[in-house]
């Protein structure tokens, strides 16, 4: 598999990946004429949170019409074919993300809805993806997957650098780094080693090394003062987490996955990069390596230019469009492009069979931002759209509009509820939406 005479480009290879990963839920695995819900192979919901920075041009995002007959706006139009599984939710506000320095905190508060402490040390809210990961990820190799396309932090004199480059917080004080190199994601998902034998050898060596370093760490902990013991405790927790994963893979195997070449690295084209990262998430869902993923399509204050769309302005300054129609048009082009790339991901989920339906049928994917009008740094109303039917728990095919000041946290709580994750309250939430 590793020696090919002809050089395949990345796309080809990945298409190959899609085909060669054994499906976790082949029809053959389900005993004939059994009610789906009664079998062990009952499909589990997949959750995804796909973030774009700098809000949206709202009049081009929110349809004018609510209910089932909503019209598709310019920004959402690329996702037209997934209309049936689309739920646009308008009118929401996230108070926890509001501050003087929005870019510094809004990504990290999107899924937590808790205003961060004014401090250089991270302290906000645990994010819903991580709440979901605790339950949905308890029996997958990776509780969750965090991806992005850009490194580098967004810093602020008041809030430090913890909230601009990630949307996932494992705990109020632990932001999770997001990986932007698809190659590394691939390695992390599928592991090192060329053959099954080699992988087994590596796994068993890693196991004994983990045992040994855990002892080292405990010895180290004893020599340290109280405040430093916590840092080593993080190390020990991480050791246990990896041990758990190794155990899981050992006991279940990878479902006979035949591993192809990994992506070469970070593609030169942004389009390619987005596609690869989305492919990684789709693959991870498909192989049941994880059920929860977060993805930041670009980071806050991104200075990326979209020359492929004929937009040479940097994204962030462009988002301060001063209501200039020419700039708005360009910004809408960029936002439309993001939806287009996201739709490619939905296409893949829709095309992947999973039990009695497709992956998309069993998914709950939130696509949105924690800013509204980027020119004014508004956080109200937020652009949010949910895709997927959540194993039949989400109606889809409608545009819901809630009264001003309805907490965004209510939507997040609703999504957790539909995924079967019982959480009572998130940030300033006041309840769930029956309409979704």
């Amino acid at each position, binding site marked *: 598999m590793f020696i090919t005479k002809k050089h395949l480009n990345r796309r080809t290879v990945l298409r190959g990946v899609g085909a060669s990963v054994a499906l976790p839920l082949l029809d053959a695995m389900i005993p004939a004429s059994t009610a789906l819900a009664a079998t062990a192979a009952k499909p589990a919901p997949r959750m995804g949170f796909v973030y774009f920075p700098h809000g949206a041009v709202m009049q081009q995002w929110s349809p004018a019409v609510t209910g089932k007959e909503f019209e598709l706006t310019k920004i959402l139009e690329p996702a037209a074919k997934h209309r049936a599984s689309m739920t646009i939710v308008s009118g929401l506000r996230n108070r926890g993300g509001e501050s003087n320095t929005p870019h510094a905190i809004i990504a990290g508060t999107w899924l937590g809805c808790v205003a961060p402490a004014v401090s*250089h040390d991270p302290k906000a809210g645990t994010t819903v993806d991580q709440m979901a990961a605790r339950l949905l990820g308890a029996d997958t190799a990776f509780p969750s997957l965090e991806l992005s396309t850009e490194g580098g932090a967004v810093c602020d004199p008041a809030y430090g650098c913890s909230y601009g480059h990630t949307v996932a917080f494992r705990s109020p004080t632990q932001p*999770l780094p997001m990986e932007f190199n698809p190659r590394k994601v691939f390695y992390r998902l599928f592991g090192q080693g060329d053959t099954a034998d080699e992988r087994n050898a590596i796994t068993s*060596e890693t196991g004994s*090394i983990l045992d040994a370093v855990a002892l080292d760490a405990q010895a180290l902990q004893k020599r340290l003062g109280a405040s*430093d013991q916590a840092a080593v405790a993080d190390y020990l927790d991480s050791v246990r987490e*990896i041990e758990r994963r190794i155990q899981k893979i050992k006991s279940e195997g990878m479902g006979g996955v035949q591993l192809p070449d990994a992506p070469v690295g970070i593609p030169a084209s942004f389009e390619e990069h987005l596609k690869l990262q989305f492919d990684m998430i789709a693959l991870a869902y498909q192989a049941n390596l994880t059920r929860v993923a977060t993805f930041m399509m670009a980071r806050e204050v991104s200075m990326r230019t979209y020359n492929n769309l004929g937009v040479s302005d940097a994204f962030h300054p462009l988002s301060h469009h001063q209501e200039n129609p020419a700039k708005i048009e360009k910004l809408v082009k960029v936002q439309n492009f993001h939806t287009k790339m996201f739709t490619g991901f939905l296409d893949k989920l829709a095309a992947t069979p999973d039990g009695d339906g497709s992956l998309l049928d069993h998914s709950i994917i939130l696509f949105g931002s924690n800013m509204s009008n980027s020119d*004014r740094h508004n956080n109200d109303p937020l652009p949010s759209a949910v895709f997927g039917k959540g194993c039949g728990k989400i109606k889809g095919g409608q545009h819901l509009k809630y009264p001003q000041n309805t907490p965004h946290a209510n939507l997040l709580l609703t999504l957790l509820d539909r995924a079967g994750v019982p959480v009572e309250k998130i940030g300033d939430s006041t309840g769930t939406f029956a309409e979704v």
Partner: protein
Amino acid sequence: MTSNGTRIALGLLVALAVTGVQSATRTPEAHWAMVDKYCVECHNTTDWAGKLALDALDHSEAAIPAEAETWEKVVRRMRGRLMPPPGEPRPANEDLDSFVGWMEGRIDEAAAKQVQPGYVPLHRLNRREYTNAVRYLFNLEFDPTSLLPQDDLSDGFDNVAKVLQVSPTFLDQYLSAARNVAVQAVGNPASRPVGTPYSNPSGGPQHNHVEGLPLGTRGGFAVEHIFPADGEYELNINDMAHALWVEGMEFENSLIAMVDGVKVYEVKLGGDEDQKAIDQKGDPSVDAINKRLKNIRFQAKAGQHRVVVTFRARTFAESDGRLAALVPGGGEERVLKVNNFEIRGPFRTDGVSNTASRSRNFTCYPQTAAEEKPCAEKIVATIARRAFRRPLRSGELANLLQAYTTGRTGRNFDEGVRSAVTRILASPDFLYRPETAPSGKTAGDVFSLDDLQLASRLSFFMWSSLPDDELLEVAAAGKLTDDAVLAQQVRRMLADPRAQSLARDFAFQWLGMGKLADIEPDPNIFPYAAVHRDIDGDLREDFREEIRQFVDAVFRGNRNVVELMTADYSFLNERLAVHYGIRDVKGSGFRRVQLPDPVRYGLLGKAGVLMVSSYPNRTAPVLRGAWILDNITGTPPTPPPPGVEALKEILPGGKILSMREQMAAHAHNKSCFSCHGVMDPMGLALENFDGVGRWREKDRLAETRIDAAGVLPDGAKVNGPIDLRNALIKNPDQFVRTLVTKLMIYATGRPMEWEDMPTIRGIVKKSAQDDYRFATLLTEIVKSPPFRMKQIPVEANLPAIRQAAVTQ
């Protein structure tokens, strides 16, 4: 440098006057009166402007130390002339300086009576340090990004202890890295063929000679590839022929591949035959041409070797290009490029011969079974001692050797060593730099670091790497805590090439050079600096290299650090020299150049600095002003309030505004002007430098002449970069204090707080006595309490909870 010397001597006089002589002439009552007259108007218990009420503070000298946290903020803003805000009545400069000197004097006096070294939490290696450690331990050159995830930054630096956390994702990659490094360090005769892709780090064209490649070549690139075993390898290069697309195929290109300077392959591409074939036969000939670039077999020995894929250069006359070349210095046009290649292998291995890595660590090799264990012990002990930066504890070696035994069982000696190396690199004793307190010390107590802990701090500060054997020996002998020995080690380490890390790592982060990667200049506005144009390469590489070499020359040359602002020399290659309008520099290599025009002197004339404080499509005087306040004067502005509207570039009638006209909007609003009145004149003084640092006389959009005149907050009139520079170093203490503060953050791995300001001022004062020479700065820093001591935190008082850090 006599002119510099005089200027600095003058500056010194001013500094002395500020701190000593003048304060004697003013009574405390006069100082308090000034505060009441100019500050309390807003900062009082009714208005609480900036959450500060100065009327609530006890106006007596004795009460100052207890309120030092507040007063430090006050004097910092006064020093930067941020307060009282521009546009408001303000005291005379002498009164402000006198107050600042007096206030700092009182705080420093009180601080001298009590050591407050602060606390650095448990430090883990960051990615850079890890990569450097691997280089030191195994003679292996890794790309850091291929090993570990990116570290979080705090206060602009990647080595701040409290944010360097460990998560499962991190540990996962950390374990993979340990494994990878161990395999490469030992070599692996049983390795299966694996493909390693490389892409050309510079995205630009390949018309000219690339620095570092053999003379007589053009374009291409080199990689350091680690070959796991002796054997046959395969090279696959990117496609160069494309269907129906003959560009670049018109002329003959000779591609060559080399390993360690020896040619292993040469092939011709393009010319009449190829062009005709593509044109007439299409796809089959395209495939045939590209096949010449695939499956290129060659032999290589195990270890790290330099692989080069490039082209033979033809003379410009031969190239048949345009007569007036668009490339600076000429060069061929319409040529083929090496964008990426892949090395696969090994096929047919025949063992592992002695690599640089093996010869460093395999200091013995067993000939008999009986020799194996003692030899393994010797190898493992040496690596572990270096990696853990201390002599091994009893039982530790036996523990590590268990991994050797596991690897050896059923396999061979090399596998045993490999297994032990993985184990060492995965250990928390390598990952963390524990600084344990002596027994008996409890919360609130201060203790000095021991010799070995100090050795680690020193080497990670100066080299971003492990202590070398000499430093470790000095420390193990208990001599490093001796001031004279410490100073001598600082000198030795500064002379070592590893200290280049201070320019490349410390200074780049201080100056915000990381941002360069995010700014892709708009090709329509800055055609001469665009990245993907086929004419110039990526100038940002040159911008970085200039600053690296320049700062390194000041640092490791042990120059007066004020030269960073004033030096009349820089380091340029042809491309950058042309960018600066300097004519007589030829070729791709960087060399020291005397700058003909004083506008380019010092950091403020460097394109890299001017670009990180710009947008991709325009200059940003606000960003430049803020950059100076952050990094040069050390008096950062407060961030803008919410709901700020963007600048208007075009008026309703269609008139395009110049940058200065756009900035004028800031003066209409008092709250904007309080910061912009400070920042904007600084930024506008640099307005002759465009967004990529090229000199210009006219604003190309507004089509007006650039007006770089302005008034700084202390009333100094400036017109252009020279005046601005002179104003900024009029009092060199200000700049040196900023540099020392940044160095202290980097050296200790924690933000500097208000309690640290007396120490910082003390270091500046001492270094002033030696003309602010860099080695003196370093020596004073490593002798200071925050570097050499620690105070065990009281649980309720952990530094992590403190909110307002003095980040100066």
